[in-house]
C-alpha cells in the first residue's frame, strides 16, 4: 500500500489502512506524527493526524479517535515541555484550552513543526503548501537521524554507522592493513617455517633416546646435536627478523590510524565535543589506536601461525601413535568449554570493575585540580572519605573478580598437567609391556618422551583459540571508539569553493531557532540585521544565549532552523575555511599554545613578515610587555617564569586576530576577567582593531560598549531590545535598567576607592 502522507515511523499494513480509512477525500491527511505514549502517558502507539484544515489524535491499538480540532477554531497551538514528556495544547478562540497530543521527546521536533504549521495556516502567514514544505523538511531531518539509535546521519537515508554490523567494521580495518600486505605475507611464511622447525626437535629426541644413546653412536650424536643447534639458531633468527618486520609494519599502521583520527578530530563539529569530553578523544587517539594495532597483527599473524602449529602437531602425533593422540586430546573440549564459561562469567565483572575504577579516576580529576577550593572550605576530610568509598567499591568488586580470574587458570593448568601424567602412565605401561615381552612394541621410550613434548606444545594453540574472542571483543570496543570519531560526519562544508561572499557585508539572522539537544530551545526566533561597519554590543544575563548567538555566526553549530546570511549569502553555503579566516574571534580566556610568543601571534601562518607581527603586537598594546621579557618574542609561553597574565594573553590574542586583517570581528567578553587599567589597554587595542570593520561584542561591562552604535539585549534566548544606545536609554527598558545598575555600582566602587586613597 502506498503511503500518501508523511510519517516518522514505518507503519504496518493494518495501521496504514486504519489511517487511510480516516482520511477524507477532499481534505486528506497530509502528515502523521507517530508517538509512543497515550494521553494518559502509558506506552502505546498514539498518532497525531493532520490535514490541511484540522487535526486529531488516534490510538492505533484501540482505534479510538479524539474529536477533530479545526484550525479555524484555534487561537494558538503550543507545546508544553514537561519532564520526560510534552503536551501539545491549543488555545481555542472561545478561550478554552484543549489537549491535542501527548508525546515523549522522541518526536518533540515534529510536534514543534506541527504547532508552527497550524499557527501559520491559521494566521494566514503562509499557504498550507508552504507550511507543509516546512513540516516535510522536519520529517527529512528526522530521517537524517537514525530512527533506531537517534544518532545524526551524514546524509538523510544512509545506513547508520552506529547500527552497522561488526563484519563491516572489520572491512574498514582491512583498509589499514592493505599497504602492509607484502610484509604480512613474508612474515606469515617466515612463521610457518619457524613453526615447522619448532616441530623437529622432539622428533630428533626420539632418535637420540631410542637409537643413538643405547647403541653408543658418538658420530651420530655429534651430527644430531649440531642439527639441533642449527635448527634452534635458524628458528630464533627467523623469529627475530619476523618480529622486527611486524614491528615496522605495525608502527606504520598505528601511525596511519592515529594521524587519520587526529586529522578527523580537527574537523569534528563542536556538537561532538559538547557530548564527548576532550579527554576521551585524546584517549582514543593515543590508547585505542595501540590496542587496534596489536589486534590487527594478532589476527593476521597469530591466527595463521597457531592454526599451522595446531594442525602440524596433531598430524605428527597421529603419525606417532593414534591411541595416545586421542588420549591427549581428551582435555581439549573441557578447556574450550571451560574458557567459554569463564569468559561469560568474567565479562560483567570487567564492565563493573571498569565503572568503579573510572569512578576513582574521576574523583581524582575532580578534586586534585580543585585542591584550592577543598582547602579553603576545609573539606579535606570529606574528600578523603568520598575517595575512600570509591576505592573501597572498586576493591570489593575487583577482589571478587580475582577469585574467578585465578581459579580458571589454576583449574586448566591442573587439567593439562594431569593429562600429561595420564600419557606417562598409559604410554609407560605400553613401553614396559614391550620391554617385558622383549619385543619391539608399538611404543618405544624415545617415542614416549618426544610424544610428551608434542602434547605439551599442543596446548598453546588450543589456549590461543579459546581466548581469541576475548581479545577480539577488547579490540572491537577500541575499534568502535575510533570509528566513532572517524565516521562522525565532519562539519558540513556544503559551500566548499564558494569564496565570493563579502564577509564584511550585511549580516542577517532570519527566524533563527536553535537548541543543543531536543529538550530546551536556547535561541528563539532571532531576527537581527547588522549593517557593514556596525559595532554591535550584545548584552544580557549569563545563560541568556549571547554566546550561542556568536557560536552560530562562527558556524560552530549548523543545525539551527532559519537562516543566517552575510552579504545575502547563507553562511552555510560559504566555504568554511574562507569564511572563518575572515572573522577575527577573541575569546574570554584565550588559549595560548606551548610555543614562542612570536609563533603564538603568527599561529601557523608563515606568510607574515616579522615587521607585520611586531606591528600587530604594537597595535594590540602587546608589544610593550613583550619587550620587557628577557627573551622578547622568543619567550616560550608556559615555560619556567613565562606565564602571561590574563590581560597580557588577551592582548596577544587580539594581536593574533589583528594580524589576519579580518573583515568581521567578534569579541566574547574580552575584558571580563581583567582589572580596569588593563581593561583600558585592551579597550584601546580593540578600538585600533575595529575601525571600519563589522564588529560584534559580547560584554558584561557596559563601559566596553562605549563605541557601539547598536545594542542588542538578549534574554532567555530572545532578542528583547534592539537599537542605538540612545534609543534604548529613552525606551527605559532592560538596557536602561542595566546601565542604571552598573553606573550605580561603578559610583560605589569609585567612592570606595576614593575613601581608601584619602
Amino acid at each position, binding site marked *: 500500500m502506498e503511503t500518501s502522507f508523511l510519517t516518522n515511523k514505518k507503519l504496518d499494513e493494518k495501521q496504514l489502512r486504519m489511517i487511510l480509512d480516516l482520511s477524507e477525500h477532499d481534505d486528506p491527511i497530509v502528515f502523521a506524527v507517530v508517538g509512543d505514549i497515550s494521553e494518559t*502517558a502509558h506506552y502505546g502507539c498514539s498518532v497525531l493526524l493532520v490535514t490541511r484544515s484540522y487535526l486529531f489524535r488516534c490510538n492505533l491499538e484501540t482505534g479510538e479517535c479524539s474529536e477533530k480540532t479545526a484550525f479555524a477554531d484555534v487561537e494558538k497551538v503550543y507545546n508544553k515541555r*514537561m*519532564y*520526560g514528556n510534552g503536551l501539545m495544547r491549543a488555545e481555542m478562540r472561545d478561550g478554552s*484550552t484543549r489537549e491535542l497530543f501527548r508525546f515523549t521527546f522522541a518526536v518533540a521536533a515534529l510536534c514543534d513543526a506541527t504547532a508552527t504549521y497550524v499557527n501559520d495556516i491559521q494566521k494566514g502567514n503562509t499557504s498550507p503548501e508552504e507550511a507543509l514544505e516546512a513540516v516535510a523538511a522536519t520529517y527529512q531531518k528526522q530521517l537524517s537521524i537514525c530512527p533506531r539509535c537517534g544518532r545524526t546521519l551524514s546524509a538523510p537515508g544512509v545506513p547508520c554507522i*552506529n547500527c552497522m*554490523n*561488526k563484519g563491516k567494521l572489520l572491512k574498514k580495518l582491512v583498509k589499514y592493513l592493505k599497504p602492509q600486505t607484502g610484509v604480512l605475507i613474508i612474515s606469515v611464511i617466515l612463521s610457518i617455517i619457524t613453526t615447522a622447525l619448532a616441530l623437529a626437535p622432539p622428533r630428533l629426541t626420539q632418535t637420540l633416546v631410542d637409537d643413538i644413546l643405547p647403541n653408543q653412536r658418538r658420530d651420530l650424536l655429534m651430527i644430531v646435536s649440531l642439527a639441533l643447534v642449527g635448527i634452534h639458531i635458524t628458528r630464533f633468527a627467523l623469529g627475530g627478523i619476523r618480529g622486527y618486520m611486524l614491528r615496522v609494519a605495525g608502527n606504520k599502521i598505528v601511525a596511519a590510524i592515529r594521524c587519520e583520527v587526529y586529522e578527523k578530530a580537527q574537523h569534528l563539529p563542536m556538537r561532538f565535543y559538547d557530548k564527548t569530553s576532550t579527554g576521551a578523544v585524546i584517549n582514543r587517539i593515543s590508547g585505542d589506536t595501540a590496542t587496534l594495532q596489536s589486534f590487527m597483527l594478532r589476527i593476521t599473524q597469530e591466527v595463521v601461525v597457531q592454526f599451522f602449529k595446531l594442525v602440524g602437531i596433531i598430524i605428527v602425533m597421529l603419525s606417532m601413535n593414534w591411541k595416545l593422540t586421542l588420549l591427549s586430546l581428551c582435555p581439549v573440549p573441557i578447556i574450550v568449554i571451560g574458557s567459554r564459561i569463564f569468559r561469560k562469567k568474567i565479562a*560483567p565483572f570487567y564492565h563493573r570493575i571498569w565503572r568503579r575504577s573510572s569512578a576513582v579516576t574521576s574523583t581524582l580529576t575532580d578534586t586534585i585540580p580543585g585542591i584550592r577550593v577543598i582547602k579553603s572550605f576545609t573539606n579535606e576530610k570529606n574528600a578523603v572519605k568520598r575517595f575512600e568509598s570509591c576505592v573501597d567499591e572498586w576493591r570489593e568488586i575487583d577482589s571478587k573478580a580475582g577469585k574467578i580470574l585465578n581459579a580458571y587458570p589454576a583449574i586448566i593448568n591442573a587439567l593439562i598437567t594431569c593429562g600429561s601424567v595420564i600419557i606417562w602412565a598409559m604410554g609407560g605401561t605400553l613401553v614396559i609391556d614391550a620391554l617385558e615381552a622383549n619385543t619391539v612394541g608399538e611404543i618405544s621410550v624415545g617415542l614416549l618422551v618426544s610424544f610428551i613434548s608434542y602434547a605439551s606444545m599442543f596446548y598453546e594453540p588450543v589456549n590461543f583459540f579459546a581466548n581469541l574472542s576475548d581479545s577480539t571483543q577488547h579490540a572491537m570496543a577500541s575499534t*568502535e571508539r575510533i570509528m566513532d570519531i572517524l565516521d562522525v560526519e565532519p562539519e558540513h562544508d556544503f559551500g566548499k569553493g564558494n569564496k565570493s561572499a563579502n564577509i564584511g557585508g550585511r549580516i542577517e539572522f532570519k527566524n533563527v531557532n536553535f537548541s543543543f539537544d531536543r529538550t530546551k530551545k536556547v535561541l528563539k526566533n532571532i531576527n537581527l540585521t547588522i549593517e557593514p561597519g556596525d559595532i554591535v554590543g550584545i548584552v544580557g544575563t549569563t545563560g541568556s544565549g549571547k554566546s550561542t548567538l556568536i557560536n552560530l555566526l562562527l558556524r560552530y553549530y549548523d543545525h539551527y532552523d532559519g537562516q543566517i546570511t552575510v552579504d545575502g549569502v547563507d553562511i552555510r553555503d560559504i566555504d568554511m575555511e574562507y569564511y572563518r579566516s575572515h572573522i577575527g574571534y577573541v575569546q574570554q580566556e584565550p588559549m595560548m599554545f606551548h610555543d614562542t610568543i612570536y609563533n603564538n601571534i603568527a599561529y601557523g601562518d608563515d606568510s607574515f613578515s616579522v615587521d607585520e607581527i611586531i606591528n600587530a603586537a604594537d597595535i594590540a598594546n602587546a608589544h610593550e610587555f613583550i619587550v620587557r621579557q628577557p627573551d622578547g618574542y622568543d619567550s616560550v609561553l608556559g615555560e619556567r617564569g613565562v606565564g602571561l597574565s590574563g590581560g597580557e594573553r588577551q592582548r596577544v590574542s587580539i594581536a593574533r586576530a589583528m594580524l589576519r586583517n579580518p573583515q568581521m570581528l567578534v569579541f566574547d567578553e574580552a575584558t571580563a576577567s581583567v582589572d580596569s587599567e588593563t581593561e583600558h589597554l585592551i579597550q584601546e587595542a580593540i578600538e585600533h582593531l575595529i575601525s571600519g570593520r563589522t564588529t560584534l561584542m559580547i560584554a558584561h561591562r557596559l563601559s566596553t560598549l562605549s563605541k557601539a552604535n547598536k545594542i542588542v539585549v538578549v534574554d532567555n534566548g530572545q532578542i528583547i531590545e534592539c537599537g542605538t544606545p540612545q534609543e534604548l536609554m529613552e525606551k527605559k527598558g532592560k538596557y536602561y535598567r542595566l546601565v542604571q545598575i552598573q553606573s550605580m555600582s561603578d559610583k560605589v566602587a569609585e567612592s570606595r576607592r576614593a575613601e581608601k586613597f584619602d
Partner: protein
Amino acid sequence: MSRIYVDKYLGRLERADIYRVRLIMRDGSVFENLEPRRLFPFSNTSMYITLLDKNEKEVGFIRNLDELDEQSVKVLEECFAEYYMIPQITAILAISEKFGSLKWTVETDRGVITFRIMNRQSDVKRMHGTNRILFRDSNDNRYEIRDYTALDAASQRKLFPFL
C-alpha cells in the same frame, strides 16, 4: 524579595488544568495558572516545591507537603503525576549491545518500552551509596529503578555490569 511560603494557614491549591494549579490565599487573593515543580525531583519528591507563573517566576514556595491541607496535597500529586514522566522500571527483559549503543527492553509501570542508551557510562547512573539507578536514553527521556535489589533475579543479573 521575600518568598511566600505557602502552607495550609496561608492558602490552598486547586487544579487549574492538566499540570497547573490555582493558588487561593486566605486573604482572598488568587494566583492563576501556576506551575508546580519539584526542586529535588530525584532526591526528595515531597519537599521543596516551587510554584512558577507563566514567565517562570516564583510566586509561591512549599517547604513540605505536610504543611498543606489534604486536598491541596492531592492536587499537587495529581499534577506531578502528569508532569513528571519518569517511568519506573519493574523488570529488565533484554539488553543487547550493538556497536557501542545498548538497546534495552524493559517493563515499566507505564508498559513495555524499548529504548537506546548511547553511553553506558554516563547514561546509566547509580546514585552514589544507594540502590537507585537513573537512566537517560538517546532521546533524553528518563527512566528510573528505585531499588535494584527489589527486581527479580534475572533482571538483576542483566543489570550487574552497570552497577
